[in-house]
């Protein structure tokens, strides 16, 4: 079992948090050319899981993918350029925040249709097994995705073919403003998964370290036992579903829960585990990286007009 690298965890956590804070800052200027679904509050899952991955593993995420992409080690230059709608982005700005994708880090193009990448992740895992490739597929999804029938079709197929895939359910309890209990007769996602043949663990509100360690162990099990797994992590979305505002004014979820979660912010816990000097160094490094990526994006060109009808066919 590898040791948990707190510095690296804090670096990634801080990098994600500050990147999204920059987005919040910048958003009113309209320089960012797409809707954004922020991960604030949910970063522990992205950081913990991604730190456990190998280079050859493959990540499927969704429209709420900033944290996953950054934690995966994606290029900040491409990330910011894509948000700016620039040709130096992951896809010339044609994809935007909702469709990040980068082959350099095995980060698959994300979708804004809930649950629609999940069967793709399963198919990718089928190919990995068929081709005898090493990489394991990791598929992040929300609790809302679990409502979709395709989710259960996908789990069944993954179990039927004993595929090397880890599903990671980021349960922030909400699909937009609708609580899980208003959507599911039973909210026992892991129990359901077990009856479909996927071994599943509910980690509750877990620390980055716990998520990291559990993921490591499960990845080993996947390799040994050749079977799919699911982990469910509870978490809290700090901001509105989409956009850069708090959604407290909508008064649809109890303030207390949200306030408690914000008070309980994992980023401060990680920070508390490190010397002040180290924290300062890490913060500086992260901010430098963000700033230079943003300048790079600022200075990049918009895509040329011919890009509109380029790439339609491969």
């Amino acid at each position, binding site marked *: 079992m590898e040791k948990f690298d707190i510095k690296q965890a804090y670096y990634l956590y801080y990098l994600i948090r500050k990147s999204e804070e920059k987005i919040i800052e910048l958003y009113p200027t309209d320089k960012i*050319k*797409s*809707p954004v679904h922020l991960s604030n509050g949910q970063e522990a899952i992205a950081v913990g899981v991604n730190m456990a991955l190998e280079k050859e593993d493959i990540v499927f995420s969704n429209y709420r993918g900033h944290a996953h992409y950054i934690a995966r080690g994606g290029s900040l230059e491409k990330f910011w350029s894509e948000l700016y*709608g*620039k040709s130096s982005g992951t896809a*010339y*700005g*044609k*994809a*935007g925040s*909702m*469709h990040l994708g980068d082959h350099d880090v095995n980060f698959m193009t994300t*979708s*804004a*249709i*809930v*649950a629609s990448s999940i069967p793709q992740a399963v198919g990718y895992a089928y190919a990995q097994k068929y081709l005898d490739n090493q990489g394991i597929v990791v598929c992040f999804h929300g609790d*809302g*995705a679990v*409502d*979709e*029938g395709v989710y259960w079709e996908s789990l069944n197929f993954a179990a039927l073919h004993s595929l090397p895939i880890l599903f990671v359910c980021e349960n922030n309890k909400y*699909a*937009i*403003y*609708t609580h899980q209990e*208003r*959507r*599911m007769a039973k909210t026992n996602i892991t129990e359901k998964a077990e009856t479909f043949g996927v071994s599943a663990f509910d980690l509750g509100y877990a620390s980055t370290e716990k998520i990291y360690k559990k993921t490591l162990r499960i990845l080993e099990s996947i390799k040994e036992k050749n079977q799919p797994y699911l982990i469910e992590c509870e978490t809290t979305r700090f901001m509105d579903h989409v956009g850069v505002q708090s959604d407290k004014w*909508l*008064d*649809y979820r109890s303030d207390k829960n949200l306030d408690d979660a914000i008070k309980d912010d994992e980023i401060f816990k990680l920070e508390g585990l490190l010397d002040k000097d180290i924290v300062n160094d890490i913060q500086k490094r992260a901010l430098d990286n963000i700033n230079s990526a943003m300048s790079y994006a600022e200075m990049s060109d*918009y*895509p040329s*007009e011919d*890009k*509109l*009808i380029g*790439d*339609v066919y491969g």
Partner: protein
Amino acid sequence: MDKNRMISYGDAIYEACVEEMKKDRSVIVYGLGVDDPKGHYGTTKNLHKEFGSDRCFDIPLSEDAMTGMGIGAALAGLRPIYVHQRMDFLMLCMNQIVNMASKMNYLSSSNSSVPLVIRAAIGRSWGQGAQHSQAFHSFFMHIPGIKIVAPTTPHDAKGILVSSIRDNNPVIFMEHRMLYENQGYVPTHNYTEELGKGRVIREGTDITLVGVSYTVVDCLRAAELLSTIGISAEVIDPVSLYPLDYNLIRKSSEKTKKLIVVDNGWLTCSFASEVISDIAINLENVKCRKIGYADSPCPTTKNLEENFYPDPIKIAIEANKICNIKRDWK
């Protein structure tokens, strides 16, 4: 009756809904977020408070089952309205719409009709990208047993929604995100608009422009531009796409001998193709053109997105070309 009562397209939809819900307990509304604080651009706002949570309710993310659920409720005599935040999501509902809803009346020899309304918004607006901006009216026009409407004005939005709710068939009610805030005259009383009747919304003599939903607005603006160089464009809002008021478009095209269909979607096998083929079959010597989305998914970045969509200038340039009048804008 206040002839000057201006309300928004979104409020017109809300009003139609409330009026019908008051008149008829069999009308129910459901969809993702319909009872949330935003109430789908205000169109469903607080309906659950006014009519109860069994008449207006949120649902799981289960588009396939929720479409079938609405069909089943309709078979039992309700008049459900299923609201979608984006038309793109209808791709998850195609089996129930195409294989089921459209065929129930036929296969039951009119014993089981399906008075279901499916409201779906075209999501276009800044940066919505490839999966939140699509329009699929051409799909639904293709399938017998389905009706599809796409009102542009608040006035038609109210009247045609009332008619759609009362219609005994599955009706796709196509909205457009960029129309919700548009203001227009809407009577306070309860009224209907006939499905299958279009409108000439601007008269003209030189060329006929036919739009769909938001592109009707584009056509009107193009007509303004064209008028400045002396071209008189007639603009048609079909309102109802199936049944479609072919006669109205034929009459206008017969008069102007020039037709541009500005579709609100891709062009291959489209509404535009359909209208032009109808003209080609039934009239002679009408010059026809189509304008629509670029032949690509919708890009997110602004400068490409602008080129992706039809706009008044593109329409006016094309119109000028086929009118062949050698004048130009300065």
